């Protein structure tokens, strides 16, 4: 069916509109539509993977306007993979949210659905102005979701987050204006065609424009000088939102990958744009994220810093492949997104079970059903610290193999191995504080959760089966990725080959039109 590519955007958008239109019908209605919207994305994502898996690049021209004049959505292996990953994170996060988080403020369901629509749109679009619009859709929704439930910590984190991202959006627009002014097109495939023939006097401006774009994507992905907002924001917000945000940093990674491979990779004067500084920044990001995780005093902050480490790891893998990404980086991307999202949900359940101490890394009474929580923690810790036998180990080994002949390969090896070791040590320390060192004679565990400090507390039902199922679904991600390592790595390798071939993408978007009439600019 030719409308397949737009379904991941239309479904959550329509569900959000229905939720808003029926907001008087009560919580049950909102939750039903919310979950139905999410669950509907599961078969759609599977179908898109199936469609793209054959190697065809499906182009959907919105409104029937052909590229480069109209906006197109492009469904290739990589975008289908990212949409499927979004769905895999979103559905458990939604299930978790319906256990009580969603009643802490208004319009949670609609915002969450809009965020999914924005994420899917950003992954599918083939036009960089449209990418900006979808970025704004997902950011606007994320502004609302971040402060959902309020509390000073969230409002404070939210204020910084909004100001930073508004500045980022302004930079994005500057870049787009310069690109349109110089190249006369905003379609990514068309840019690849125009770039090589650009007169030399325009090179500097185009390089500047691309550098602005890189800065914007680095801000979204939390690459080092632009990463300080992330731990505050992710640790302060509610768990289901943080789990969904785990994929938001990957939007930055994805956009940089797509634009650098298809866009700047196509001309020699922009191809080396990332070259000199991506590797040092990526390694510094790994170091800072690891140090931040060591210093953290709450489990959620540890996990937020692990998100920073994963961004650094992905960019290091990109730098080790000269700005591209092979299957290893994509496999690791899938793995790390699933694991960090699951970790956020686990931190929330531990916090709910421990009472007043929440998820602080200090002694307390052993939480109820600690055996199950500890088992989930064990699985996630093994996956996150890249220990065998789970997918983190496989992903990191693949990355190490792929960068071994690069000149910065040794530095990447050291950074990845040391950060994995430190992560293992600090997660073991966290587990010992959370599950082993029982405080002497605790009073009866408080079941109702009073607000503590400046962190607002969501109204959880302790034994909620929904949060258990949500957590179980996400925790199963890493073992599943390990068992299915062969087909998944075949798929991601094919996705990376398809991305790097570049010509099929351009040909699919522009068809055989090589003689596009260009206006002459003064």
């Amino acid at each position, binding site marked *: 069916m030719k409308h397949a590519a737009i379904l991941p955007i239309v479904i959550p958008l329509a569900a959000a509109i229905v939720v808003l239109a029926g907001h008087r019908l009560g919580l049950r209605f909102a939750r039903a539509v919310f979950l139905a919207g999410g669950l509907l994305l599961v078969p759609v994502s599977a179908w898109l993977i199936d469609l793209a898996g054959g190697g065809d690049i499906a182009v959907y021209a919105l409104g029937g306007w052909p590229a480069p004049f109209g906006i197109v959505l492009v469904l290739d292996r990589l975008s289908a993979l990212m949409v499927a990953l979004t769905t895999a994170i979103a559905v458990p996060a939604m299930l978790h949210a319906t256990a009580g988080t969603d009643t802490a403020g208004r319009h949670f369901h609609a915002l969450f659905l809009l965020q999914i629509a924005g994420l899917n749109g950003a992954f599918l679009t083939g036009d960089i*102005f449209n990418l900006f*619009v979808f970025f*704004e859709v997902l950011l*606007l929704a994320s*502004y609302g979701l971040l*402060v959902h439930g*309020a*509390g*000073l910590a969230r*409002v*404070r984190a*939210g*204020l*910084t987050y*909004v*100001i930073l991202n*508004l*500045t980022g*959006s*302004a930079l994005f*627009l*500057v870049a*787009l*204006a*310069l690109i*349109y*002014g110089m190249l006369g097109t905003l379609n990514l495939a068309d840019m690849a065609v125009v770039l090589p023939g650009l007169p030399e006097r325009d090179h500097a401006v185009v390089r500047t424009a691309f550098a602005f774009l890189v800065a914007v994507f680095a801000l979204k992905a939390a690459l080092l000088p632009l990463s300080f907002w992330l731990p505050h924001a992710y640790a302060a917000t509610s768990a289901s939102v943080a789990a969904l945000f785990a994929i938001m940093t990957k939007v930055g990674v994805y956009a940089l990958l797509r634009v650098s491979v298809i866009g700047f990779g196509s001309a020699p004067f922009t191809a080396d744009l990332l070259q000199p500084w991506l590797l040092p920044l990526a390694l510094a990001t790994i170091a800072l994220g690891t140090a931040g995780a060591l210093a953290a005093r709450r489990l959620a902050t540890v996990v937020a810093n692990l998100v920073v480490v994963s961004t650094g790891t992905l960019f290091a893998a990109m730098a080790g492949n000269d700005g591209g990404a092979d299957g290893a980086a994509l496999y690791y991307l899938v793995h790390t997104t699933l694991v960090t999202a699951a970790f956020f949900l686990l931190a929330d359940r531990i916090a709910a079970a421990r009472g007043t101490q929440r998820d602080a890394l200090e002694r307390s009474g052993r939480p109820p059903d600690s055996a199950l929580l500890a088992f989930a923690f064990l699985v996630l810790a093994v996956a996150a610290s890249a220990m065998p036998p789970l997918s983190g180990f496989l992903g990191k080994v693949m990355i190490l193999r792929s960068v071994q002949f690069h000149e910065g390969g040794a530095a990447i090896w050291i950074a990845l191995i040391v950060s994995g070791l430190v992560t293992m040590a600090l997660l073991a320390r966290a587990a010992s504080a959370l599950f082993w060192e029982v405080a002497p004679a605790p009073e009866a565990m408080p079941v109702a959760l009073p607000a503590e400090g400046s962190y607002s507390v969501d109204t959880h039902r302790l034994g909620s089966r929904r949060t258990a199922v949500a957590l179980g679904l996400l925790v199963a991600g890493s073992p599943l990725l390990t068992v299915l390592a062969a087909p998944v790595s075949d798929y991601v390798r094919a996705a990376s080959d398809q991305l790097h071939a570049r010509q099929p993408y351009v040909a699919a978007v522009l068809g055989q039109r090589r003689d596009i009439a260009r*206006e002459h*600019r*003064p």
Partner: protein
Amino acid sequence: MELLFAIAVGVLTAAAIFLVLRARTFSVILGLTLLSYAVNLLIFISGRLTVDAPALMLPGADRYTDPLPQALVLTAIVISFGMTAYLVALALRAKGESGSDHVDARETGE
């Protein structure tokens, strides 16, 4: 006229950066507003400055203005307007929660 435009965009951006770097939410919001003005002007001239020409390729007209930046700038204006409104609401909320309009929501005695 290009020079005038360039100077205007430059002055707006410089003022915006100065204001965004201040520690009070009110100045930051003003700065972001100025920044969005500067950016909108920049988008507007990305199709080049053309005086007294239609935005359509009409029969008989020998020149026309590029209509695309006008559409782009409209999108940018709507988005930045909505975002600024949200930021004002959030800043008021932070002021209500913490009693301070410092961007870190704490009083430093500036």
